[in-house]
């Protein structure tokens, strides 16, 4: 007989919208975002917080959503790649990735986007070299790194010109 799993109701702030969802008590954030919110951009790959394909922003900081329990983050603003875009208007990071063709199979790309966006917002003076080092936590098996770095370089120089 199927027995119900132990569930709890939590309120989560995801991509600017507060919503009540029922989750299994020990559910990880990546599971919740995929299953309860249908957000495809968040992808579990290594399960141990190494590869970065499940990267989301928690109050603007890049974190691995496979390594957090959903119940730990009920007080935080959660942002995924879908949430960086404003309707049809893409975020500057997404535009830069598009412009530089920074995608191949694209499984890792939203996590990269979220990581670059978080780094640039949290470290207003970040240099290209520092940003490159931050991206060591996001793996790409296709080897799209050159295009990702080109996009990052463009974003930094655009910021410098604007500043």
């Amino acid at each position, binding site marked *: 007989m199927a027995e119900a799993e132990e569930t709890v109701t939590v309120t989560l702030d995801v991509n600017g919208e507060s919503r009540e969802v029922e989750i299994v008590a020990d559910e990880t954030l990546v599971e919740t975002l995929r299953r309860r919110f249908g*957000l495809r951009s968040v992808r579990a790959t290594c399960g141990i917080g190494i590869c970065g394909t499940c990267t989301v922003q928690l109050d603007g900081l890049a974190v691995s959503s496979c390594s957090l329990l959903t119940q730990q983050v009920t007080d935080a603003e959660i942002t995924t790649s879908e949430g960086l875009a404003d309707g049809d208007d893409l975020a500057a990071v997404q535009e830069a990735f598009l412009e530089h063709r920074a995608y191949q199979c694209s499984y890792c790309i939203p996590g990269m*986007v979220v990581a670059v966006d978080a780094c640039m917002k949290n470290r207003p003076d970040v240099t290209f070299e520092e940003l490159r080092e931050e*991206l060591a936590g996001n793996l790409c*098996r296709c*080897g799209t790194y050159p295009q990702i770095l080109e996009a990052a370089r463009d974003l930094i120089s655009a910021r410098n010109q604007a500043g």
Partner: protein
Amino acid sequence: MTVNPIGLDYPMKDARDRVVGTMRFTIDHEVEGMAHARVVRSMVPHGTITSIDTAEAAAMPGVIAVVTGADLAADDRIASPFFGIGRKDQPPLAIGKVRYAGEPVAVVVAETERQARAAAETVWPEIDETPFATDHLEASRPGAPVVHDDWPDNACGAFRLHRGDPDAAFATAHRVYEMTYTTPSANPVPLEPHVGVAHWEDGRLTMWSSTQWPHVVRNELANIFGLEREAVRVIAFPLGGGFGAKGQVKMEPLIACAALVAGRPVRLQLDRDEVFFTVAKHAATMRFRTGVDADGQMIAREIELHYDAGAYANTTPGGMGNAVVRSPGPYRSPNIHITANGWYTNTVPTGSYRGALTTQVAFAYESHLDEIAHDLGIDPVELRRRNLLHDGDEYATGESMHDVHFAELLDDVANAIGWGESAAADGDPPHIRRGRGVAVILKSTPTPSRSEARIACRADGTITAYSSGVDMGQGLSTTIAQLAASALGVHPDVVDVVDPDTDITPYDAMTAGSRLTHAAGIALGHAATDLLAALAELAADQMEVAVDDVEHVDGAVVVRGAPAMRTSWGQVLADAGVAELARDGVFQSEGGAFAEPMDVKGVASVHWHQGAVAAEVAVDIETGKVTVERCHGAAFAGRVVNPTRARQQSEGSIIMGLGPTLFEEYLLDNGQLVNPNLSDYMIPSVLDVPVALTSHNMEHVDRANNEIHGVGEMTIPAVAPAVANAVFDAVGVRIRDLPLRAERVLRALDAQETTDG
């Protein structure tokens, strides 16, 4: 049409969804009423299954079924619970005995994934352990543990090539060299794991799978269940990376069996460690013996290859033929003797890893040639020039080489790296030594092979191209749009491409071997020719002109000499009362060198893939750490269909290739894989990318020659030897075993010091 779609730097059609993350992968696919599976795996490398206690699991919450290999063997609905491309030796769940640690022995199906996991943990197989062999040379010896009773000597494929008179040539050689090289097992690590959903309805099976080979999966599933091929439908969405890991047949039989027994649609997504347990690269031991004349010409060669097949045959038996024909490298070999043997071992079954059965031999022959060059005191680039194949030369198989550009590729990479100039850099601390190396490789493409394609035009004006080629990051569906558009004379914007679906898209052998752009391009070309002819006939009738006077211009027909008489294809079809007009095209390559396994000869490849890499390394002599600072790759593309994507293939191949060169390898302890995770098994990160990384995809000089070569894996085989040769150039130690881990380099440096001292 103002642009030629071939060579157009056209972005992937779904680029926006790729960047935002809204594109659909197989992990996103759900079916109503779907249950979830979890695999129970063997903890031991070899043994007889005495019992599997499933009672506790069966009673757990949400559990629908617990299935073992014995259940499959006893199930009347399963015609044959074995699959495999080379030999049907692999059960979806171990039957009777287990052959490697990590082999599936049972599967639990439950309402939720969590319930399936919890129940799977209670299933405990009792296995009577027997001696095991995880090393292929050990497995090859008499008296070794027997992996399959049907193959008591563990033999898993053997091929031989003999040409000229090697013995006589060795006798006249100026010098003879003999060295042995090894490359370890590794995992392709697609970031998307293997994932699939099986759904049975009225005796018909639909399988959504992250596969590179949808038609082969269909045929194998039909065979397992004793069904007509048409009773099985396989659907493949774009892959989150394949790199060979999703070739052939992988988890599909297990998922389909689980769904059959459970009586529900079943989904299975592997955890990362399970990807490591599902497919591995062939480890290899390669002995190269070479006789050269005083000029350094390789006049006599003997190559002995041993490959680790793992526990199940998969492609190994036939693959040994590919191992043979790729092992001479891009060099004239008038007198040569090659043997290749695969051996069953108690390790993860092998399959493809980008550059399959090529990266191994390329490391060996390009390291070997470098060693010979240094011993003879001949510049390594010059020694290669003296031996490289040119158009019209006979290859080791006896076939005449055509469209080969090895010399230009070598020159290109040598120039790019500054060959001949000092590698030393100002400002380097004294413990950093720099060096440069090059490597040139060739790879056959599957021959003979078949790809079909279809193009349909509709009265509503839409155009759709159909192929079963799988988009796995190379952007194949957009490439197909460009190829179809070129053949039709329209813009790629107006050509839709559908995902592979064996009910809808025509037969394709496999998305592998860098073959699809070439093969699909030719098939689409034939389809377009026939489609344009059929449209012209309809239009000629309607316009009451001779069919020869009808021309096609940008999706419309015009009458020659009367351009005002212009009708769109959609209108032609609408006027004719035809909703859709479709034509199929076929690519079928001829040739084949493997009819007699002990006497390989003939056309091994419809054309030869060609690549080269030059690398500059910095070696820290205090730690042994090798850093690849500069890298340039060159490939022969024939025609570049899309410049950015071709560049991404060549440079992505180099980046991926740095993994097995520097750190990727399966580590075993007492038959157990001890690093099946992305913490202990590292893959290249952005910090491993050479500071200077460039590439060149070379095209035909003859503008009339439009033959397209694949570029998916032309640089990867050359990376390891180029880097190993650069390490020798930097510090004078020769590493003949991959990967070039810091400890290994440091030990070699210590040994060198001891010898010198």
